[in-house]
């Protein structure tokens, strides 16, 4: 029986890379998977794992998700019922309480904190490129097989602020500590593009497929 993975499609953008990354990670782990790019609530309900990618503005992504009939409801239900969830980039940001871009937009409120514009002084924004992950080795299953200072690919101008240390499992340094990964119970998210982070990204996707929170 294959592991059913739903990659939620609510706006377009590059979902193919996330789906292919999951498939390749599954081959490496010898986990049979059925990865579906879908906006159908029933597919989300049937899924063993849920992945929510996201690009662009927090408010647009939140609206895009709400615009598909029943999609958001199915996501919230399944995650509340314990289905492992991985949010990528804005998909991770949506896990927070609020987004503060173009007014205030509520997030899922799964982790503490708000998504606010990064205050980096005269440094370039977006924070774009490869940056090191900082984490406590052995602190979370999703980080297994990674070394602190492995690099991940980031593109973002907004980040989680006022988060809880308990819910932050990795950070990166861009003029100061930036939240790179969050996790709580069956919910996890990466600010960086795990599907664009070569071997490091595939390792995390594989960890997610093996993850039993």
């Amino acid at each position, binding site marked *: 029986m294959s592991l059913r993975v739903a990659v939620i499609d609510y706006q377009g*953008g590059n979902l193919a890379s996330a789906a292919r990354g999951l498939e390749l990670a599954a081959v490496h782990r010898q986990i049979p998977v059925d990865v579906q790019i879908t906006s159908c609530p029933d597919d989300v309900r049937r899924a063993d794992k849920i992945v929510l990618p996201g690009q662009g503005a927090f408010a647009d992504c939140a609206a895009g998700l709400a615009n598909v009939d029943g999609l958001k409801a199915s996501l919230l239900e399944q995650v509340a019922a314990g289905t492992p969830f991985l949010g990528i980039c804005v998909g991770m940001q949506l896990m927070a309480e609020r987004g503060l871009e173009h007014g205030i937009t509520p997030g899922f409120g799964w982790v503490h904190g708000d998504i606010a514009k990064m205050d980096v002084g005269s440094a370039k924004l977006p924070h774009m490129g490869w940056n090191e992950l900082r984490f406590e080795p052995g602190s979370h299953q999703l980080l297994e097989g990674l070394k602190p200072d492995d690099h991940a690919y980031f593109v973002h101008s907004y980040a989680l602020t006022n988060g809880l240390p308990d819910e932050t499992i990795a950070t990166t340094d861009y003029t100061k500590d930036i939240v790179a990964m969050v996790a709580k119970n069956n919910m996890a998210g990466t600010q960086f593009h795990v599907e664009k982070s070569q071997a490091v990204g595939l390792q995390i996707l594989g960890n997610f497929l093996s993850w039993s929170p």
Partner: protein
Amino acid sequence: MLKLRVIPCLDVKDGRVVKGINFTSLRDAGDPVEQAALYDQAGADELTFLDITASSDNRDTILDVVQRTAEKVFLPLTVGGGIRTVQDMRRLLLAGADKCSVNSAAISRPELISEAAEKFGSQCVVVAIDARQTAPGQWEVFSHGGRKPTGIDVLQWAKRAQTLGAGEILLTSMDRDGTGEGFDLGLLKTICNAIQLPVVASGGVGELQHFVDGAKAGATGLLAASIFHFGKFKINDVKQALASANLPVRL
């Protein structure tokens, strides 16, 4: 610490990689998907495809190239060349591109930048600027593959692109492109100091020191084509040269 990005650029025409000297006299340097996979293994930080299939007949060949590349390569992929509409961008993003770079179409209709940024997010929108020096400290924007003068000042255009919601500037010196004399450092400094967006330097690298010079001038991305394709340097040679100059790279 954020690392400099070393970005090989593949000029693609009708689905094949080519690279011109000063944009003419093209030479065939192979299959784009194979090359992309090699660059991926060699430690490239991103990849750029520049589609120079100018006629609309063969425009869809790039979609196939992007799709086949994205199946193999888990690295950020930028595609530029001939993009005129938000719909063009959407098709490329769906095929597996992460960023689209717009040039001539954005010059004739700057709202394209804001429309694309609204629809896909700024991080998807690269504004490519082909610049030619007109006077000391002054550069003019050229469109249509660097053939057509626009009368627009490069600095003003870069600032406008930032305001409209671009996520990155790809800055090519037409004076240096294909010469191997190094980036136009005056141009780079002028633009990098004036805007907050990341700037990718392009046009002119011939020696390893040129990458170091470009980074010191403020570029956070360093793009090159010929020197990689024809094997003069490997990606790792560039990174070692940057590291030796105490610049941050992902090794």
